[in-house]
């Protein structure tokens, strides 16, 4: 659960997203093959699960049938209560990412613009980036109370650090030739920032953004489990565990996973559309 230790270093673009990247790639293939490729993995997972369940390889009190799980999850979704929890978590993640981005991108650009400024703050940023965000819960509870604000604040803080770090690196690693080219045309510093450095930073910003979303999701789920939540996927999972609703617990875990995966894939698609030149 050490969200803060997830490495978001530059040059690790493909980590954690290689699967989604492959799916994107697969989307361009002919339909039949694409469907086969996409379904193979999940089918395999369900098959292994079912074999473990039916062959009683795992204690039956710990592992429900995959089909019962899927059926119960479908009922929970249809009834709307899982959708409510799902949306609550999604909204909290969205808030924390919005806050982290609005505060993180400008600060990252400002820090990256002056090499010496970033170097002098590097230790502090690295320190907090390496601190498990969950270790800060008590502090944020003191500051913001038990409500949603504390949860969003911790997640936003953890996500903010990752965004600042990545944006600053993006600015520092901007191609000098492009900056020189703009300068040779007589562009002012402000114009170079707006027209060149901002765009140069975008690929790294998206790397930061995707990592930030994963971290925010982890933090929000954990916060929902343990600090006075009445809804959200984290709350739902721990509730199902305590009341021994095995199918609900497994189903909720899968739903939370789907959320993380969906967010990552969504961002990747946005990234490919906006940063179309990345890696080319």
């Amino acid at each position, binding site marked *: 659960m050490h969200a803060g230790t997830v490495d978001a270093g530059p040059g690790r673009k493909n980590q954690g997203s290689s699967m989604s990247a492959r799916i994107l790639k697969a989307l361009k293939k002919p339909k039949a093959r694409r469907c086969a490729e996409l379904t193979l993995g999940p089918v395999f997972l369900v098959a292994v699960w079912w074999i473990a369940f039916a062959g009683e390889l795992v204690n039956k009190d710990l592992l429900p049938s995959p089909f019962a799980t899927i059926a119960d999850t479908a009922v929970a979704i249809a009834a709307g209560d899982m959708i409510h929890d799902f949306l609550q978590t999604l909204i909290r993640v969205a808030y924390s990412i919005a806050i982290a981005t609005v505060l993180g991108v400008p600060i990252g650009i400002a820090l990256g613009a002056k090499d010496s400024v970033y170097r002098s703050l590097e230790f502090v940023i690295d320190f907090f980036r390496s601190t498990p965000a969950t270790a800060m819960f008590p502090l944020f509870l003191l500051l913001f109370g038990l409500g949603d604000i504390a949860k969003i604040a911790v997640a936003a803080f953890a996500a903010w650090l990752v965004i600042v770090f990545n944006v600053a690196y993006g600015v520092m690693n901007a191609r000098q030739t492009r900056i020189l*080219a703009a*300068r040779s*045309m007589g562009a002012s510093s402000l114009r170079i920032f707006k027209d060149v450095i901002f765009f140069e930073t975008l690929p790294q910003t998206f790397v930061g953004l995707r990592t930030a979303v994963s971290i925010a999701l982890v933090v929000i789920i954990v916060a929902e489990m343990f600090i006075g939540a009445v809804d959200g996927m984290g709350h739902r999972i721990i509730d199902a565990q305590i009341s021994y609703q095995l199918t609900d617990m497994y189903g909720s875990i899968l739903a939370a996973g789907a959320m993380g995966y969906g967010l990552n894939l969504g961002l990747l698609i946005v990234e490919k559309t906006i940063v*179309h030149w990345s890696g080319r």
Partner: protein
Amino acid sequence: MTSSVARVSADGIARVGEDLPHPERRETEPPMPKTSARQRMISIQGLKKSFGDTVIYDNFDIELPQEELISIFGPNGCGKSTLINMISGLMPMDAGEVLYDGQTIKETKISYVFQNYREALFPWLRAIDNIHYPLKVMGLPRRTREERVEQLLADFEIKIDLNAYPYTLSGGQQQTVSILRALVTEPEVLFLDEPFSALDYEMTLFMREQIQKIYLKTGTTTLLVSHDLEEAVQLADKVLLLTRRPTRVAEIVDVGLPWPRTTQVTTDSRFVDIKRHCLEVFWREVKAS
């Protein structure tokens, strides 16, 4: 910029300037009397540059004629690129003064084409918007920009899909876009830093023709850094040969062959003689240390 004037060079070949009117050209010219009798000069005085303990230039002086194509050739590490980076204002010099016919770098309209077009073009802009960009920086209204770009494309019969993003174009096309981007501002001095070194041979030959076409049409003062002696001779009125560092002028070789210089010219005996002479100077300088 004497592009609107037909002129006759020392070798007696008439260089016909462009015949198409450029209403805005006159306004953008420096307020300076036209002197056809006197050759305008680039003057570099007391240039100094060191990187750490390595002295590249120490009191380097040179005068070069404007409205000519001058190529710069010299041993590795002698600071060919450093020289044009400094006199184009891209890189600060430690000391010295550069004047373009009495005007400072800031007062002179300069364009620069980089060796690495991949890193010099803006991949987030379409090729056409890359060409527009310097005019946008100059603050020209859209209408004027479009007119200028259209004129430029018509002048050089460009057959590239300019609505494409640069990374989808071939290397030669990308460098052509870079060159167009440099030309669109109608610069007084054009700098080319090994512009073809990242291209394959076939494309290089084609681009050499393009550069000649541009030069013959616009007559823009052009400084070309090259690591290829054949190219340096073929594409120049004068070849500036540099020594090892601390860099001095080894010789300024007058090429004086008629333009345009086709690939056949490069096998002509006069061409070969000039090239051999340059090579001798080059070897002498390489072995000097």
